[in-house]
């Protein structure tokens, strides 16, 4: 089978000592940033984006993918060990003994990689036949789900999306070269760097938030108790892992984004299926399948989120948006053609998903004690240190001190957004995808000879349009029908 040969070649590329080393460093670094508060995978990848100017494409993509997956594992470690204020303590402490249940993540990710490597080329083959109108509608679908569905408020989500789109407008227009919104600042001709926005919104805003509001916050730490699973735990976890993977993987494949829905669904399913004593443990002592299922669903979604990125070029989360930025730095445009033009890179990246997840399993279970120590880094030094790395990321991209002032301004924006509960993912997705969507829209209308009717004349495009409208309208209709409690 052709796919097997390609995958084997991918393993050969990803398995060279240098690339293995990049994968390892990525996984370790990713776990570390996942464990540490204040930096997530998106920030970590963003701060390291300048390396794209020096390091070869395959190596750096393997490195970034390692950070992406590593951070997911690291983050779950923190959530077990720290009682973050505001979260109900019972929920977190209940997970304490269930650390092993989280190892289902690795299984879910590996299974999803396997499904993905068979599925992705098929999707790419299908996607080749899509034209600008369909692409534009797919991007609109991504915008809608990222901003209107995933957050707590549609208006705030849309505001964030349009702020991102506005940032994407700065600089030269892709099609006509028209300069927009540069206010005469030469640095802005190339547009606003994605690194700046990501690092500003996350790292700098996080430090500002910490100094303004979190000085007095005391975190309580949970103790790790048992780390082995009994036979009964295994019996309860394995089916939950399988169900979680089955729920999570399809959600990652569609350009809709978000892990909230699949994790929530998986939790609901597990609760529904539980009986007797097991059911009593839900929300009480902590039911192991209630951890294992959602964890598997979460990881399957995250792993599968690479598929729309690679096959369609559509990112649906912060980190995949930044990965798309990394591809663009190499002059590579992810999309269906990627499987023919950069086949070696794609398959090496897919192979590295397998390698990376095995590495993470090895890194995480025995070394958890080491990661826990990272939590002991005092906050002042931690955040101040993050600012040094933020400087590297922001300055290293274009060697301009102007960018550091802009970084501060975006930090302020991020602070306000964080304080008033505006989601940040739509900003990045809007900023990265905005210019692409604009180009597709204008190309589509050119194909339609100046008529926007092209979007409703083609069946797939029309179907997507209907879907977008449904997503926006349906929840409101449902809400209007159910009587309010007040």
């Amino acid at each position: 089978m052709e796919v097997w040969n390609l995958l084997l070649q991918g393993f050969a590329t990803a398995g060279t000592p240098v690339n293995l080393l990049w994968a390892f460093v990525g996984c370790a670094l990713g776990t570390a940033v996942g464990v540490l508060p204040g930096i997530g995978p998106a920030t970590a990848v963003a701060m390291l984006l300048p390396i794209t100017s020096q390091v070869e494409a395959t190596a750096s993509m393997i490195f970034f993918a390692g950070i992406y997956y590593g951070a997911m594992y690291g983050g779950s470690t923190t959530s077990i060990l720290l009682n973050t204020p505001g979260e109900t303590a019972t929920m977190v402490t209940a997970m304490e003994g269930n650390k092993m249940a989280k190892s289902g993540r690795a299984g879910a990710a590996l299974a999803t990689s396997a499904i993905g490597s068979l599925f992705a080329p098929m999707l790419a083959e299908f996607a080749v036949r899509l034209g600008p109108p369909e692409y534009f509608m797919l991007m609109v679908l991504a915008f809608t789900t990222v901003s209107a569905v995933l957050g707590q408020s549609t208006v705030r989500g849309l505001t964030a999306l349009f702020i991102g789109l506005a940032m994407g407008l700065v600089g030269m227009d892709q099609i006509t070269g028209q300069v927009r919104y540069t206010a005469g600042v030469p640095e802005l001709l190339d547009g606003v760097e994605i690194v700046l926005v990501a690092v500003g919104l996350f790292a700098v805003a996080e430090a500002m938030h910490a100094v303004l509001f979190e000085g007095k916050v005391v975190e309580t730490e949970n103790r790790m108790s048992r780390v082995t699973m009994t036979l009964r735990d295994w019996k309860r976890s394995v089916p939950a892992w399988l169900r979680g993977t089955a729920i999570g993987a399809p959600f990652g494949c569609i350009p809709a984004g978000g892990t909230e829905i699949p994790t929530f669904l998986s939790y609901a399913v597990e609760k529904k299926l539980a009986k007797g004593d097991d059911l009593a443990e839900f929300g009480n002592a902590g039911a192991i399948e209630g951890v294992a299922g959602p964890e598997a669903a979460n990881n399957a979604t995250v792993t599968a989120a690479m598929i729309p990125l690679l096959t369609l070029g559509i990112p649906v989360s912060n980190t995949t948006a930044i990965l798309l930025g990394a591809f663009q730095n190499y002059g590579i445009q992810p999309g269906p053609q990627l499987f023919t033009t950069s086949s070696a890179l794609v398959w090496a990246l897919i192979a590295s998903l397998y390698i990376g997840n095995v590495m993470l399993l090895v890194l995480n279970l025995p070394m958890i004690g080491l990661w826990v120590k990272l939590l002991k880094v005092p906050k002042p030094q931690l955040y101040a240190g993050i600012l040094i790395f933020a400087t590297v990321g922001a300055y290293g991209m274009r060697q301009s001190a102007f960018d550091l002032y802009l970084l501060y301004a975006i930090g302020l924006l991020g602070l306000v957004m964080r304080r008033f509960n505006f989601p940040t993912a739509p900003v990045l997705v809007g900023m990265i995808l905005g210019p692409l969507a604009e180009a597709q829209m204008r190309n589509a209308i050119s194909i339609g000879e100046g008529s926007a009717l092209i979007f409703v004349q083609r069946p797939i495009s029309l179907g997507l349009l209907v879907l977008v409208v449904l997503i926006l309208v349906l929840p409101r209709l449902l809400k209007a029908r159910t009587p309010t409690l007040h």
Partner: protein
Amino acid sequence: MRPRGHASHSPVLQSLVGAGVALLGLALAAGAFTIPSNAGYAGVGPNFLPWVVALALLTCGVRLFFKARRGGFRNMEEHTGEHPFWGGFAWLSAGLLLNAALITTIGFILSCTLCFVLAARGLRLAQDPLAKGWAPTVRDAGVGVLIAAPVFWAFTKFLGISLPGLTQTGWL
């Protein structure tokens, strides 16, 4: 009911946020006027999306403003911390802005160390506003150099990214 007292739940501040978004929309609209439309075959030119974004932000801003007036934003998360600590914020801001101002003159290592020291001082004061002693700050300076210098060397020597130095030696 939502608890009172958190700054982010203040209707005045929320209205300001809404007004700010609306103003941004207006500013973008003003900018959109200056962009020529030369649409060509596309039917829509480079000024189309700016108009869409401007009007959308204006609409969102107005909606946010009225939501703030009528009982505040909905579904707000509970926030940690009650009152903002502006003193610490000033130290942190000084660190970031001085870094931007000085990085090309005094070099990456010194500039980042300064940023580290000032930011760490702000964060430490946030934890304990009475800890005004300078001893931890001196230690921070050491820690700052220990972070900034290896980062500088790693990025310039191994990854070939150019960062500004104080001297031409490439080591400082």
